């Protein structure tokens, strides 16, 4: 079986890789490109820990074939901060002490950013429903929701 050659863009950088037809985007990110910020919590699209965006659309990278990234723009947690400057969502998650173990946080941040890009002024209920695809077992979500609401307010003011 021959490998597929993929040309894509990840976090603004041109990237090329060879992948097996059955390999997921998450496999390639983690195992080939050493971008381990996206986590495999379930491999079945139920936990959201592997969230990335593909041409701006929020996806579970465990459910996307690596070959599907051809010609697309992929954004991952590794591209969220601007150099040393954290994204407001990252800052607010820290300020609100909204992470405990932190393993779900890359996925939550990618998902929350995708929400705020579409809906800069969500209600708390909208945030809760948008993040319903991202499991967190440590926090009970309370501080995460507060952090996202706070970041949204700050980003609207900025």
């Amino acid at each position, binding site marked *: 079986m021959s490998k597929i050659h993929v040309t894509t863009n990840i976090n603004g950088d041109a990237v090329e890789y060879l992948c097996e037809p059955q390999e997921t985007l998450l496999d390639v990110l983690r195992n080939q490109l050493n971008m381990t910020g996206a986590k495999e919590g379930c491999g*079945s699209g*139920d936990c959201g820990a592997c969230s990335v965006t593909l041409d701006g659309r929020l996806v579970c990278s465990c459910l996307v074939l690596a070959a599907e990234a051809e010609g697309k723009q992929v954004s991952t947690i*590794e591209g969220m901060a601007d150099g040393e400057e954290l994204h407001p969502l990252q800052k607010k998650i820290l300020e609100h002490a909204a992470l405990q173990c932190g*393993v779900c946080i890359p996925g939550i941040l990618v998902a929350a950013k995708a929400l705020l890009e579409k809906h800069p002024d969500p209600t708390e209920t909208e945030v809760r429903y948008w993040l319903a695809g991202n499991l967190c*077992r440590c926090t*009970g979500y309370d501080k995460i929701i507060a952090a996202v609401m706070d970041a949204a307010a700050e980003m609207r003011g900025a």
Partner: protein
Amino acid sequence: MALDTDKREFKIVGTRPLRPDGIDKVTGRALYGADTTAPGMLVGRVLRSPHAHARIVSIDASAAEALQGVKAVITAADFTTANNSHSQAVLDNCMARGKAMYHGHGVAAVAAVSEAIAKQALKLIKVDYEILPHVTEIEDALKPDAPVLYPDKPAKRVPEGTPANVSHVTHFGHGDLEAGFAKADKIIERTFRTEATHQGYIEPHACLASVSPDGKGDLWCCTQGHYNVRALCADFMGMDASQLRVTASEIGGGFGGKTTVFIEPIALALSRKANKPVKLVMSREEVFKASGPTMSSVTDVKIGMTKDGRITAGYANLRYQCGAFPSGTIELGAMSAFAAYDLDAVKTDGLNVMTNRPREAAYRAPGAPTAVYPVESVVDELCQELGLDPLDVRLKNAARKGTKASYGPTFDDIGLVATLEAAKAHPHYSAPLGPNQARGVSCGFWFNFGGNTSVSLAVNVDGTVTLTEGNPDIGGSRASIGMMAAEELGIPFDKVRTLVADTASLGFNDVTDGSRVTFAVGLATIKAARDAIQKMCARVAKIWDIDPEAVVWEDGCVKPAGDNAGQYEPMSLAEIAAISVKTGGPIAGHHEVNADGAGVSFGVHLADVEVDPETGHTSVVRYTVFQDAGKAVHPAYVEGQMQGGAVQGIGWALNEEYIYGADGRLQNAGFLDYRIPVASDLPPIDTVILEIPNPGHPYGVRGVGETPIVPPLAALNNAVSRAIGVRMSALPMSPPRILKAIKG
């Protein structure tokens, strides 16, 4: 100078600084179990039993071994015999020895150059099974004709005539039950059931093992206790503990489920056989099938109460199943069931029965939620029947300082009464309820542990401090421990860097469990800082050429005291550190302790629910957690523990359950069918921290993390029962169960 004093005025403790590992965790840089690699690394995979109970007649791995790219195949035969029966059970649970005891039990494992080849190799391993009758449910396992898991190995410490699958029997209590029940105006007796749940950590178990031909080993893994991993794995591999270095990765949740080993010995054995590093990561399905879920339970409770709300006697008979190996968790259940009450007559009987399910691992306050749930539910029912306020009744019967606990000891300073009073005074308790809504109340309790702890604290020449501890940081403990070091040393928090050492770099540490870390590692850190302070005082006294007793440590400085007061300029930690190499060498403090005095913890939860009478669906509409935390070192992370624990309990009460088919196979091994609470299921979780200082800690700290999972089961049971007008007695209260209760 007297250093071993308690402290009640704080500059840093009680504030909310950013956690030191935070930036790595919001940028994706933090390395968890599956996030690291080694040159030449192989991929490991485990073959698991498709049967609930089967004798392994033979394993033929020759075709797998012959497959190109396969570098090692192992079975139970590749391990030594463990040095005690407890460890042997841990090992046998990793890899079946002679019999597969449950669906998903490891039978063999391979290491290959790729995942695809490893998976292909598993299919080539021929296992000849002789299928045996199985049992997965408590009451079935206790029947006289039940399939017996270990017919050749009867349990040792159980009375004659005990059913063959029972591994442990336990009893606690005091007083005259019969006389107590005779004084009651109302007695309620009821049987309660809970289903097994899983800790549900988002990060599956993962490790990277490397054993070199000279016998030295390195292991990287996500664990709550790498020293325990070292002890177990060195035993199973026949290695000296000093030859195996275990490094704990960042950990993506544990909640007790990562206090033991499941795949680590397998990866080490594969690595030794293949002579290459082996990475082994569980799939989510494997996590559900073959890690350590919690128990299911059946409990009979009988409680008597007078018309004015005094409990006259309490009795509980608890039966737990904790999977296919012996478990003593039942003791913790039998001890905690009535812990919140000051009772003249109380008794608990408990037993653990083995079934063909995965071996239980600890889950947050192990044993307690399923024991407190039946008791708190019957207390609520009595309140309802007698027309009494559930908080008033709990206040009337609450354990307090001097109470002889139902499990034996006499309580020291505890915060239950203050916690109940705070709940009563809170606006939540008097807020109006809407249609189909009701409010539930429950107390909760956890013992809290101390345990073996080593800490080393180096004072660097630039005036900073490196603090080395040995407990994986599962929820912000680097922050709270660093804060205690900074507080004691009088330096800014950001001048302390707290590191979690590997097993070769620091003395032994018990597992991160029992809510012990902020208490015990904090205590050891304070003592290590005081050790360094003593050395700095001696150093400065020498410089000033005065008696070491004639100096004091104040505000982060050594100052002259007594007759010498004011005669010398105080010297700060940074000033002392800067010249340390010229005044006698490096300065460091350390402390090793088996910490005692953890101080028990109580909480009270208020839960408002709304039950849809048409669908049986329960919405939690308001939730408040009240808990005595002792001194809250980093209040935001204390709140986080209270919120997270409450939500795990909510999941346990409403959604989560292990479902076994008649074939003994687990039917819902994934997050789609085993549904943990998501953000849209929940309201905000409000928190009220009470700070009743623990006399066993210099700053008054007590454990926090486990108590909050205990009350939600009964709080929700009581709220749902009041909302639908029918007393519920089985968890989870999923919509079909509630509908059935409503419709009779």
